[in-house]
């Protein structure tokens, strides 16, 4: 049992997990209804996402992959922002400085060096800011992971590298991803600390991350955390896992899924009962529902935003295209849009 976490803090973790779960389940439903684009499911990853994030200080930055698309919710980012991102709307973009949450990295592993560079940069400014990057087991095969961890080891960046090992990179199992016995073994090669933890246990992930962040802040360098869990849902709404996994095994895994586990733990400690649990679930569901309604009520952003956000100081040629698109949107002919000068 986790040291230093009082009853209220434990309930806070629970509410965070329910919020992420609620977001995920409704996002899948919205996608089925045609109200979101293809959506990457994080069902079953709530424990490791919440446990890791809550071990950070507010100044520490998070670098999410698509699997942690909703992580900003735990930092006060509006639900509308994340829903907009999955709707392919400009309102889904955010300034990473606002909530200390970097933008979602779609290509696997590519943001690992970003987190390392950021943490290194803060350290060189004598700021006590750390970074945490979330990535999956598949990411550990990428060159960016390798180069990122190589840099992290050399510069002793105050960074936590959290591998959410759910066993699958779409249809490819970890056994086909690496010859290493355990992903955490890779830490040795980079000269950094490594720890393996049950990713389905929110308190275990919290403790492991807390220790890693403390080490980073004290100048002890990076830590690779392998949080082992199971992917019990499709990779994304476009995925059909029945083609590659054993449904019976997944059904067994689902009976041990992280939110249920934590709910039972809290119930055993008499910290929560079913009424309270249902109240939390309903409240989170309502928040997501209201956010979706707000997103759908919103007037569309002018398409010219794509020109306004690409450069700080745009090349003059873009101004011409911007004007043409603006005229098109205003119902004119838009002569010249995309058709050269």
């Amino acid at each position, binding site marked *: 049992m986790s040291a230093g976490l009082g009853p209220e803090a434990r309930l806070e973790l629970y509410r965070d997990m329910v919020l992420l779960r609620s977001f995920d389940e409704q996002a899948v439903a919205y996608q089925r209804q045609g109200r979101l684009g293809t959506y990457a499911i994080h069902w079953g990853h709530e424990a490791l996402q919440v446990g890791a994030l809550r071990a950070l200080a507010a100044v520490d*930055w998070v670098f999410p992959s698509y699997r942690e698309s909703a992580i900003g919710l735990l930092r006060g980012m509006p639900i509308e922002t994340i829903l907009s991102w999955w709707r392919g709307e*400009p309102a889904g*973009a*955010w*300034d*990473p*400085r*606002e909530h200390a949450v*970097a*933008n979602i*990295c779609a*290509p696997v592993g*590519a*943001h*690992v*060096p*970003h*987190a*390392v*560079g*950021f*943490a*290194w*940069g*803060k350290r*060189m*400014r004598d700021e006590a*800011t750390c*970074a945490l990057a979330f990535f999956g087991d598949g990411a550990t095969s990428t*060159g*960016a992971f*390798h*180069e*990122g961890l*190589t*840099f992290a080891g*050399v510069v002793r960046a105050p960074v936590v590298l959290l591998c959410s090992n759910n066993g699958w990179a779409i249809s490819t199992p970890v056994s086909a991803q690496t010859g290493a016995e355990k992903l955490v073994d890779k830490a040795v090669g980079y000269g950094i600390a490594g720890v393996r933890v049950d990713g389905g246990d929110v308190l275990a992930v919290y403790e492991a991350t807390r220790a890693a962040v403390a080490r980073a802040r004290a100048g002890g360098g990076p830590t690779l955390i392998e949080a082992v869990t199971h992917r019990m849902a499709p990779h994304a709404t476009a995925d059909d896992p029945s083609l590659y996994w054993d449904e019976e095994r997944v059904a067994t895994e689902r009976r041990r899924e992280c939110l249920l586990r934590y709910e039972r733990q809290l119930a055993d400690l008499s910290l929560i009962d079913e009424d309270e649990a249902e109240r939390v679930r309903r409240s989170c569901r309502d928040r997501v529902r209201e956010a979706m309604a707000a997103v759908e009520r919103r007037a569309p952003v002018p398409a010219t935003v*794509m020109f*306004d*956000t*690409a*450069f*700080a*100081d745009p*090349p*003059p*040629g873009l101004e011409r295209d911007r004007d043409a698109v603006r005229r098109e949107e205003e119902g004119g002919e838009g002569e010249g849009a995309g058709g*050269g*000068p």
Partner: protein
Amino acid sequence: MKTLVEAVNGALHDELERDPSVFVMGEDVGVLGGVFRATVGLRERFPDRCFDTPLAEAGIVGTAVGLALAGWRPVCEIQFDAFGYPALDQTIAHVGRYRARSGGGAPMGIVVRMPYGGGVRAPELHQDSPEAYYAHAAGVKVAIPSTPADAKGLLSAAIRDPDPVVVLEPKRLYRAPRGEVPEGEWLVPLGRARLAARGDDVTLIAYGAMVGVALDARQRLLEDGIGAEVIDLRSLVPLDEEAIVGSVARTGRAVVIQEAPRTCGFAAEVAALLAERAVADLRGPIVRVTGFDVPFPPFSLEDAYLPSVQRVAAAARRAAGAE
């Protein structure tokens, strides 16, 4: 009088001095001062801001993204042109896109500079001209000096630019010829071409080491009574369209020169621009003089590969209808 590489070195010194967030990083840039000595002396003067990185180009540009998010102005050296390919993923997918991805919020003032081009008898993958890859990467600006003064002014402007800039330095011009370089603050704004030589009969459009080839061709053309204007683009993104279109409007003839392979090279972009905006002024075909659509050959053959004075002069005569 300074060499181009000395001018680069001067700009780096000045910018590190001016802005405490400028951070030079790359392979062998510190203790050694860079394989071309572009960063010599920086480590002594700015020991905390000239960093020898691991041999990992995607790591260099990838960590630079994070450094920029943390408030730094990273200036990455890629040791040779083709060594930048492992970092193209970071450059295209992140450096050029982060600003848009963050709704215009994330600071992404990164400079990636590298020696490029042939003509120095170098081994394979030390002679490439990768400018089209970078010019095609949305969100990234591209500057290419051809004189020591422009090398200093463009690099200083690039380091101060709020957007990411790739600066390609023609390595065959690193040591010669020398040129005047203004002391102190010296900025050459991105997006302004340089009129390298005036002429009325044909416009030769070039950048990097090809500017010198164009100027030599101009001398040869003068013997035939053909007056060639030479435009040094200096920056591909933003592109000084008015300088190109304005010159061709006067001469009615255009030759575009690049070292890179022909297909989808930057010369094609310039030719397309002229076709769109100056076709009524053209009195002959737009002619390209380029490298060939083959891998850059072993260096004993590079003179046959690279655009030569003779080829450029012949192309100009063809464009002018004199051949």
